[in-house]
């Protein structure tokens, strides 16, 4: 029996495109484990498959296998002993995934804000190709500012 102290910190963010390829990954905190690029690619595609398998394996099924947002149903949240993982899939099949320490709140909110940043910084960038890795400075800065704002406001609470 391990006592898990409920601290709050976001660990990793990764984004998977609709074919399962990883288009973005980064650590949001020095506490996050260091993961090499090969392992990241593996994590991205494994998660992509397991996301769909979770909906298949469930004895319950949503109407047309779509969740209330109109996207295909799949893993929304995983609670594990050492971390929470939260996934937001858009109707176009892009999955935004964030991991955090067990005590972290607001994961769903942060993911939706990251989606807004993706739409504003990556999709509106005329040089960004769809489904390709995201290398937009504005997006990275936006995510940094968002995480800082959320962590600061949760410390004040």
């Amino acid at each position, binding site marked *: 029996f391990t006592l898990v102290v409920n601290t709050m910190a976001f660990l990793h963010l990764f984004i998977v495109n609709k074919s399962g390829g990883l288009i973005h990954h980064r650590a949001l905190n020095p506490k996050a484990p260091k993961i090499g690029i090969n392992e990241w690619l593996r994590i991205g595609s494994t998660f992509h498959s397991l996301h769909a*398998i979770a909906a298949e394996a469930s004895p319950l099924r949503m109407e047309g296998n779509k969740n209330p947002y109109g996207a295909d149903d799949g893993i929304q949240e995983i609670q594990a002993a050492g*971390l929470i993982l939260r996934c937001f899939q858009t109707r176009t099949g892009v999955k935004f995934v964030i991991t955090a320490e067990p005590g972290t709140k607001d994961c769903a909110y942060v993911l939706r804000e990251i989606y807004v940043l993706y739409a504003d910084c990556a999709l509106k960038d005329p040089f960004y190709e769809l489904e390709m890795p995201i290398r937009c400075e504005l997006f990275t800065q936006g995510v940094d500012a968002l995480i800082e704002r959320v962590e600061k406001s949760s410390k004040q609470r």
Partner: protein
Amino acid sequence: MAVHSIHIFDRRGKTLFTKRYAKSQGPAEDAEQLSEQRKLVFGMLFSLRELVGSLAPESAGKNGGALHSIKTAAGTLHNYETISGMRIALYTDNNNIDASPSIRTALKYIYTELWVELVLRSPLYIPNNIDIRSTNFEQKLDAYLGSMPWFR
């Protein structure tokens, strides 16, 4: 919250016990489809544990990847894993998610008080060839789950 099904797997993926509690029966499924679904559940639990383990920080220790629950829009899978690699997986729907810690306690109880006491300590126990029907495990399990406020 309604419990829909329970599966108990051993460390190699063999299903030791499975039961559906569905009140509204889904489309009629034959035995092969059900066994396929069980393999999917085990495979998912196995691979997800590895995935989560590689993402968990070092402060979580060696068992950082131990899965507690997996939520989709359709329902939630609650998982309890023992050190011997046995997994108890329980499917519920998503109404009343506050019951999560009590579900975990219930799964732990099912292992320590029901499984260990009634099945492992049964004089007819043969490892690798467990005969559940010779024990009263299922009746006690039904009674225990039925007494939970979140079981409907």
